[in-house]
């Protein structure tokens, strides 16, 4: 029970910090450049949250993520530019259209597994990118879309300043994190993780694997579409390169740095990566080499990412203290009653002492 409370304490502290730092950042930020970096980081983080649902929770390495991001961005941008739609209508429409396309894509690609799924989604990403690039009359092709309007004001709230845009994006980030946290701690999150663990086992429990994969894919695309729409009205210029696989791999890198299948991971990873990117500006084109090296190191030595490894460390530390308190035996209710109905010697109670 105590450990349960502690776990939640950490969560509350995390949320508190996020809220406070998030709110005061524009006030204390030394220059406007940092504010831009943070805003863009938050937008990417929302897309990475989507990716986390598919890659982290469902265990399906989808490489169509930037395709969906570009789709959301272009849909929203075009709706605002060509149809004069209000941002507050264009954004949800962009999210919904992205979701619908993702479901169609999912229906096809989830018929495959493993490497085939990875390759298929990579191809789908490329196709989306090509359509954006070649459909000149609609998307402006390689020239891109210029002059996408700012988000429309809500009553007295306008989004003309960098600060107001930052807060707007921050609110969307908070909503995203809230939803992801709800999913993660609910039966749905557990269902997703069980599919990642073993599809066959999941289906023997009555879990409809295909349906749940599609559902996860759809939710992920919805948030990715939102991120795209936010990007469109923040940067106000769209080029086809925002839908290339380069961006997909960056999202993937952010996720791995932060930690898959964790609620904090996408944000932590995106922020760490943004800071690193900015401090590596001098390296220019060679940045990707450094990133590549980082990726190898992470996958090899820190597969849990920042959040996952921190969590492991926490477990180790609590374990250590519990052991010290309980005199080398694991604590917890009934741990002492090793003569339960089934007297299996377990690892924690081994009579052979290592070290």
């Amino acid at each position, binding site marked *: 029970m105590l450990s349960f409370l502690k776990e939640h304490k950490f969560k509350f502290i995390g949320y508190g910090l996020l809220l406070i730092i998030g709110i005061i950042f524009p006030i204390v930020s030394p220059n406007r450049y940092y504010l831009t970096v943070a805003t863009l980081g938050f937008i990417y983080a929302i897309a990475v949250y989507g990716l986390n649902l598919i890659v982290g929770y469902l265990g399906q390495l989808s490489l169509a993520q930037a395709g969906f991001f570009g789709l959301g961005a272009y849909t929203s941008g075009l709706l605002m530019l060509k149809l004069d739609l209000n941002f507050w209508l264009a954004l949800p429409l962009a999210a919904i259209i992205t979701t619908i396309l993702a479901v169609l894509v999912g229906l096809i690609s989830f018929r495959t597994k493993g490497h085939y799924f990875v390759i298929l989604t990579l191809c789908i990403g490329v196709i989306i990118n090509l359509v954006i690039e070649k459909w000149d009359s609609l998307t402006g092709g390689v020239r891109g879309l210029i002059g996408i309007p700012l988000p429309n004001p809500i009553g007295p709230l306008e989004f003309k300043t960098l600060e107001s845009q930052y807060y707007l994006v921050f609110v969307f980030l908070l909503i995203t994190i809230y939803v992801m946290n709800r999913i993660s701690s609910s039966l749905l999150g557990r269902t997703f*993780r069980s599919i990642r663990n073993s599809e066959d086992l999941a289906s*023997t429990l009555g*879990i409809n694997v295909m349906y749940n994969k599609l559902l996860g894919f759809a939710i992920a695309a919805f948030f990715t579409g939102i991120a795209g729409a936010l990007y469109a009205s923040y940067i106000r210029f769209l080029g086809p390169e925002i839908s290339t696989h380069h961006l997909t791999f960056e999202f993937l890198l952010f996720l791995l740095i932060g930690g898959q299948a964790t609620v904090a991971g996408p944000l932590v990873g995106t922020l760490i990566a943004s800071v690193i990117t900015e401090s590596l500006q001098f390296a220019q084109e060679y940045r990707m080499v450094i990133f590549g090296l980082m990726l190898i190191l992470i996958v090899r030595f820190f597969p849990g990412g920042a959040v996952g490894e921190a969590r492991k460390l926490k477990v180790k530390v609590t374990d250590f203290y519990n052991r010290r308190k309980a005199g080398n035996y694991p604590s917890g209710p009934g741990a002492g009653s090793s003569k339960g109905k089934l007297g299996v010697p*377990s690892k924690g109670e081994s009579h052979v002492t290592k070290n």
Partner: protein
Amino acid sequence: MLVLEDVNVYYGAIHALKGISLTVNEGEIVTLIGSNGAGKSTSLKTISGLLRPKQGEVKLNGEVLNTVPPQKIVERGIAQIPEGRRVFSQMTVMENLELGAFLRKDKDEVKKDLEYVFDLFPRLQERRSQLAGTLSGGEQQMLAMGRALMTKPKLLLLDEPSMGLAPILVKQIFSIIETINSGGTTILLVEQNAHVALSIAHRAYVLETGRIVLSGDAKELSESPEVRKAYLGG
């Protein structure tokens, strides 16, 4: 309650089940014994809908299950504990158990069943926040059984629960299978360890390369010369 009629199953060109017919009555423990590759796991997967018969029928209380999707078959009350990887290794004991109750809406009953499972396997309660992958082989088997019980099955399909366990643990697991059965759950038990399987079963079928070659009362079978020679070591 469960009837298989002339069931034929193929893996591509491989004819794995060559016309199997068997019956499991309500309240029974029925065992399906046979050596490696006989088609035991294939039979269970066919019943739970993971594989489909090319010919023949699987019927539960008269209803043909051939085209019913696996999750609906679970809803009808059939739970399977597959062989090999039995638990969600990256999830905790508690999460594994909760997933067992995935399809259930009767939350109060679920709580009671959880207590029942912890009663049967106190070890699981002690280790409820541990990752299932770090449990010992025996504990994982208990967890798999506990999780299957959380689906509140009418019929429990067990695929080689003795595999990889020490003899003392096998005995304990099998006595729990008997306890579960006396609680009203029908059991179809697949085993290579014919000795223990026949000791708790009411009836038995012997499977050899996709065909049922012998069947009958478990006790009688365990005394029959063919079975003694082939499966009980003389």
